């Protein structure tokens, strides 16, 4: 009877597979997460931004990833009219993909659409929360933008506002964006891919890549495998352990800074000695090059060096468990209940190996004598704990988080995280509050200085968090193309910068 059982399984080997020979100028990009929408107004979300921002829709200004300076894009120049008003000169001779002309009216429409409360819009809620913005066309290509309170960095902020065609309906989310960018929206097979086609009428230099397809795989190993096998050309974000091939894998600072937020309001963490002891207990050098890439940079504050307001004089906390124990003993002697259980809250998948790093820090804190409990949460519960309103009877918490500021200025970081009224602030320090308010209204060197002072106080005196690292991402780039990831690759992926080999 066994003979009958010989099933024709063997045939497979015959089909040794060749990667489907793609058109010479077509590329495939594999991302981790599919966008829900292609709403330009949501382009601050990386899953949407990587597809649409600066590919399909463009912004008036652009932030240079290398030095944080502002460069022209759809606006050619800008100037401040008065404290509340800025004037932008719109680039001439640009048309949207649907044929509409780009002029001041069109930009005003785009700004109004972004500010429209009927549309769920992250650009508005993230960068313009509580601010009233009124665009007024002065002539065909001149636009004045007024705000209800002084915004010294409005040109920087305009780098986040995408300009979509005036034919895009008000108040309704978009699934087929139309902009002025070097690529036109081609199609979206939900769950499968999104395709972009080169805009032959683009106002700038014609890009190399003719067609681009975005696909999604949630597993880093699969994304890496796809580039390795030639099924995809770029995987912008893979885990460090999958970056095993130096010829393809490029690390880049991804503008993220990881930290452990300390809740300074709840005992025993309200004692600054305990907070310092936490910082001294972490062996940052052991984690770097093992759990994290060797390229991560131990951080001293929550903004990366290219950000206006970064304080270069701060020093990385040393690893000094002996001193940490002394501090704890001293705190205990003064009546602080250092044996109270402290909850470490981590978020699953916040960055690659997030669980491992929390386990490692948990062990390090335990070694020094902290009574810590580790809890890994999924994103929704984690957000609930991270943001105000906080629970009244919350335990002392050390919370894993990560911050991304690639918009050039410390204001996008500081108020939210450290002002006593900030949505994620767990500290209340009058000096810091004052510094931050003054910095927000200042310009130039004074602004930088005030922010630097604030960071110095936050990190050296208040000790509001455990700064971890300025993180790096790994991009795997296939051999057919040339692409150098930059600090902005985390939120956008300009296909026009990709060159075919």
């Amino acid at each position: 009877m066994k003979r009958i059982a010989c099933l024709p399984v063997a045939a497979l080997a015959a089909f040794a597979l060749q990667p489907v020979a793609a058109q010479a100028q077509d590329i495939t990009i594999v991302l981790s997460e599919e966008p829900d929408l292609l709403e330009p107004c949501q382009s601050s979300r990386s899953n949407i931004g990587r597809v649409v921002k600066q590919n399909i829709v463009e912004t008036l200004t652009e932030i240079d990833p290398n030095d944080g300076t502002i460069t022209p894009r759809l606006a050619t120049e800008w100037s401040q009219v008065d404290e509340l008003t800025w004037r932008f000169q719109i680039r001439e001779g640009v048309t949207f993909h649907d044929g509409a002309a780009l002029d001041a009216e069109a930009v005003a429409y785009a700004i109004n659409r972004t500010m429209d409360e009927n549309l769920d819009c992250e650009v508005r809620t993230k960068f313009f929360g509580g601010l009233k913005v009124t665009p007024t066309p002065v002539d065909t290509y001149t636009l004045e933008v007024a705000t209800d309170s002084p915004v010294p960095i409005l040109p920087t902020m305009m780098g986040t506002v995408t300009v979509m065609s005036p034919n895009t309906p008000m108040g309704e989310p978009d699934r087929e964006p139309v902009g002025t960018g070097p690529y036109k929206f081609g199609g979206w097979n939900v769950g499968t891919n999104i395709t972009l086609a080169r805009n032959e009428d683009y106002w700038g230099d014609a890009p190399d890549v003719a067609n681009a397809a975005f696909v999604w795989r949630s597993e880093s190993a699969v994304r890496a495998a796809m580039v390795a096998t030639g099924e995809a050309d770029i995987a912008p974000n893979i885990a460090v352990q999958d970056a095993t091939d130096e010829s393809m894998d490029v690390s880049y600072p991804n503008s993220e800074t990881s930290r452990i937020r300390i809740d300074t309001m709840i005992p025993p963490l309200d004692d600054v000695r305990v907070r310092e002891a936490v910082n001294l207990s972490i062996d940052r050098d052991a984690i770097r090059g093992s759990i994290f890439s060797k390229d991560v940079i131990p951080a001293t504050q929550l903004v990366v060096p290219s950000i206006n307001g970064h304080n270069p004089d701060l020093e990385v906390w040393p690893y000094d468990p002996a001193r940490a124990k002394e501090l704890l003993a001293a705190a205990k002697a003064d009546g602080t209940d250092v044996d109270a259980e402290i909850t470490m809250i981590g978020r699953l998948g916040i960055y690659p190996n997030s669980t491992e790093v929390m386990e490692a820090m948990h062990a390090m804190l335990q070694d020094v004598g902290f009574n810590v409990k580790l809890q890994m949460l999924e994103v929704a519960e984690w957000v609930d704990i991270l943001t105000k309103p906080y629970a009244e009877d919350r335990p002392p918490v050390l919370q894993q988080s990560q911050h991304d500021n690639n918009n050039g200025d410390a204001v996008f970081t500081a108020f939210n995280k450290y002002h006593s009224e900030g949505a994620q602030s767990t500290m209340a320090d009058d000096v810091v509050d004052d510094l931050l308010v003054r910095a927000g209204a200042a310009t130039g060197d004074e602004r930088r200085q005030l922010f630097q002072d604030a960071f110095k106080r936050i990190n050296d005196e208040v000790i509001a968090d455990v700064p971890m690292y300025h993180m790096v991402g790994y991009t795997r780039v296939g051999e057919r193309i040339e692409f150098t990831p930059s600090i902005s690759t985390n939120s956008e992926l300009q296909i026009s910068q990709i060159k075919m080999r």
Partner: protein
Amino acid sequence: MGQYISRRSVHGLVSLIGLLILVFFLSRLTGDPTNLFLPLDASVETRQEFAERHGFNDPLLVQFGRYIGDLAQFDFGTSLRQQRPAMDAALEAFPTTLKLAAVTMFLAISLALIVGALAAYRPGGRFDRTASVISLAGASAPDFWVAIVGILVFAVSLRWLPTSGTGTWLHWIMPITVLLIRPFGLLVQVVRGTMISALSSAYVKTARAKGVKERVIIFVHALRNSTLPVITVAGDQAAAIVNGAVIVETIFGWPGIGRLMIDSIIQRDFAIVQATVLLTAVAIFVMNIVIDVAYAVLDPRIRHN
């Protein structure tokens, strides 16, 4: 039969309503999507305004009433994330999973019938041992693990198959295999068990006494009688296949309803959770009816009762 099916339909409707209520309230208990949807830096006022606009501040019962009211008009709600009718999103994803499940179950059942029948012919024999251990071993491995190892071996090292995605028939092989191994392993055991008793049953003796060939005895006499329990188990497996589909769709990047369902609950996009659950429940219900009909077709004793 007609009466039976209409009674089943009433039961099905009752269960469906129960399910909708359960899903509605359970999913709401997982928390408000506001924090998740808005950027971390959003102000308290923005959050408040958002929740108000989407009705998350109303009492649960009011929200439920609204949901039922819409449902009566065949409005299954609007996805918060995708900003479009939730049922559109669910229906778009459904065919993929359906195809995946159908091909998998078809292959699992056919292979299990053949392998199980041959194994049962000589229980304890070499073929039986090998088939049992291999099928069970396959069914005993975590499916996501098999999937990733499969990609690394067959796509990256050997380059026989594409890593993931959809397209050619080659793209089907790994997802189907991963999805197949568990139902196949269990079904082989079931087929083997029922075949062993079928082959030692009295009517097989009669057939041997008539001089019927062994091949006919196995595949005509015994196998048809073994299919009923197999169909029951296969039905349960098919109903549970959406679980496996979640894993397979996630890893291989297939746009199916399993992945949509899980992504939606993680993002607290309740309308889609509800739509997908409704859709799968209806599919399971329809499948059960089909199974009942299959029983009747395969077994005249059921047909005549």
